[in-house]
């Protein structure tokens, strides 16, 4: 045990003596969260909207005024035909077109519902999301006001949202969970894979091997310090997204932390596995960065929804741990669901972790090649 603690102490010394490592460990995640978070939480002010009013009645007039006077939007143009929509987007100043269907006011009074379409410029996903969300909020507000004098609670305006260029835009809340997922696996796998290959490269591994330290002690000795630091990192990231962006944790925070620990552990053991197959630090960095970053960004559902991918990619993404963690973290943070809805993903991560540990202990060479 004393041997093991001595080893852990040495690892901490390495970490604290290397400012660059500390910077990567804490600085980069914070910076990424801030960058991504800022990008998605931009306030909109005076975003250009064009109005296509096919009804021209009192109600549409009032609703248009309410939207324009909210301060979030400014009217760029009044359109006359559907055909103008294409052009108005091409000009670039208009972020969304609001369309009132023909006989909007009449139907609202006679049938109790009318529909309104919002077409947003999907080439700027974040702005598009915000514009539509704000518009919907204003419309909902408007319905409430209308409902009282009409004494008819069934009045509804159905906003129908379409994206002009990027029809599959998803909620912006996915970004922060996605970034957390990406950062944790990158940092953890990178750190541990580099720390072991460094010992190989400097020849210190030879001496460690010719010592009474057992492989599992060396592996755990490498994992534990980074586990502790990464967990602090998780707390930091969650605090940042809470205080700076107001990202909620709707579900159990304990469950969230427990899942994060599992995910960190999985990533660290993956890093160990990477180190057992790489000859030097360069390779380890390359495998960790390129081998993990691109698949995580592209295939884990972080940016592109898995359901829209060709089946092949869907199958490929099944071996990616981030795919499952994104589901877990989004469920807990945004939907507020409990373990019953994410036990499958959790179980998969546990199995992966055990698999990686088993494999790295097996692959960890007690001798040199």
């Amino acid at each position, binding site marked *: 045990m*004393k*041997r093991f*603690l*001595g*080893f852990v*102490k*040495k690892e901490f*010394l*390495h970490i604290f*003596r*290397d400012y660059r490592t500390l910077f990567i460990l804490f600085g980069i995640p914070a910076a990424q969260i801030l960058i991504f978070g800022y990008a998605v939480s931009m306030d909109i002010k005076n975003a250009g909207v064009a109005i296509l009013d096919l009804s021209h009645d009192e109600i549409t007039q009032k609703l248009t005024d309410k939207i324009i006077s909210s301060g979030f939007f400014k009217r760029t143009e009044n359109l006359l035909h559907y055909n103008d929509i294409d052009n108005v987007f091409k000009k670039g100043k208009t972020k969304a077109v609001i369309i009132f269907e023909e006989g909007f006011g009449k139907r609202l009074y006679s049938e109790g519902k009318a529909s309104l379409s919002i077409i947003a410029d999907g080439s700027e996903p974040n702005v598009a999301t915000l514009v539509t969300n704000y518009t919907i909020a204003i419309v909902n507000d408007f319905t409430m006001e209308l409902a009282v004098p009409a004494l008819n609670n069934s009045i509804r305006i159905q906003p129908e949202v379409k994206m002009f260029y990027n029809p599959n835009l998803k909620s912006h809340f996915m970004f922060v969970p996605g970034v957390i997922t990406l950062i944790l696996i990158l940092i953890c796998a990178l750190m541990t894979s580099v720390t072991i290959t460094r010992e190989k490269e*400097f*020849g*210190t591994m*030879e*001496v*460690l*091997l*010719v*010592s*009474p*330290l057992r492989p599992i002690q060396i592996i755990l000795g490498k994992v534990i310090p980074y586990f502790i630091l990464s967990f602090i990192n998780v707390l930091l990231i969650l605090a940042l997204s809470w205080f700076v962006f107001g990202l909620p944790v709707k579900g159990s925070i304990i469950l969230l932390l427990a899942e994060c620990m599992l995910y960190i552990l999985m990533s660290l053991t993956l890093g160990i596995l990477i180190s057992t197959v790489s000859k030097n630090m360069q390779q380890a960095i390359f495998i960790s960065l390129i081998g993990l970053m691109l698949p995580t960004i592209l295939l884990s559902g972080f940016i592109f929804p898995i359901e829209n991918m060709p089946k092949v990619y869907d199958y490929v993404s099944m071996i990616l741990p981030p795919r499952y963690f994104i589901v877990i973290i989004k469920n807990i943070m945004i939907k507020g669901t409990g373990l019953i809805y994410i036990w499958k993903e959790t179980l998969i991560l546990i199995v992966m972790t055990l698999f990686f540990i088993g494999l790295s202990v097996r692959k960890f060479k*007690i*001798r*040199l090649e």
Partner: protein
Amino acid sequence: MQNVIESSGISKNFGTTKALNDISFSVNESEVFGFIGPDGAGKTTLFRIITTLMLPDEGEIKVLGMNCTTDYKELRKNIGYMPGRFSLYQDLTVEENLNFYATVFGTTVEENYELISDIYSHIEPFKKRLAGKLSGGMKQKLALSCALIHKPKLLVLDEPTTGVDAVSRSEFWDMLGKLRQHNITIIVSTPYMDEAMRCDKVALIQDGKILAIDAPQKIRDGFSRKLFTVKSVEKYKLINTLRKYPMTLTAYPFGDSVHVTFINDMVDNSLFDYLIKEGISDVVVQETKAGIEDRFLELMNKTE
């Protein structure tokens, strides 16, 4: 007396290259045993087999009476190993390195301080310095201290003197000599022939084969011919001219002179006449005693 290392017929291949070919030797207790040979001769591979880091393809090896393949766990506790590149943590201080290796081997610096005091005292004034900031000589002393800290029965030093200046090297060999009194057996490798004389016994190794094993004195005495040094200002011309002389067997540059052997093992006036005829008049010829390197050359020529 028990043999610390007993090796018979060890071979090791990497792909198609034979790194070690039928290596047999034995090392006695408290001996300083040197493996002398150029880079690529197989010294490091052999040392990795001795330290249980590699398994031989063929042959048997017993270290400290234990089997390298099956008893490696027990064996590793009793070996102090200093690999070719000094295995120090560059970002830890001198003191931290030493403490780390002590704990890993389940001991403390205080417990075995007496063993390393001679060596460590040289670097103790710098104990707060990062190992990466030490000079070559100091790194070498720290690495040796780290390898000794658990009082190993066998000390394995792979090229400890490479890249270190002559002063530090000389001190290093003095230290190894002193370790003998602690009953520590030392095997050491070096590409530098002149270091052979500092060992009790040496094995000359080349291309994975042992050319000779004996006390260094006896290896020198094994030189089969009379050896002469020939000196002239124009060395290059001298070598070429000597090679053309019919009675010359071998002529090799050796420092500031040329080491020559003759078919008839003697120098007579015909040599001087020949050299003068070729335009070299300032020669000085002396008989000399062969060194390890002369013997190594002779053995290499024999095997080729």
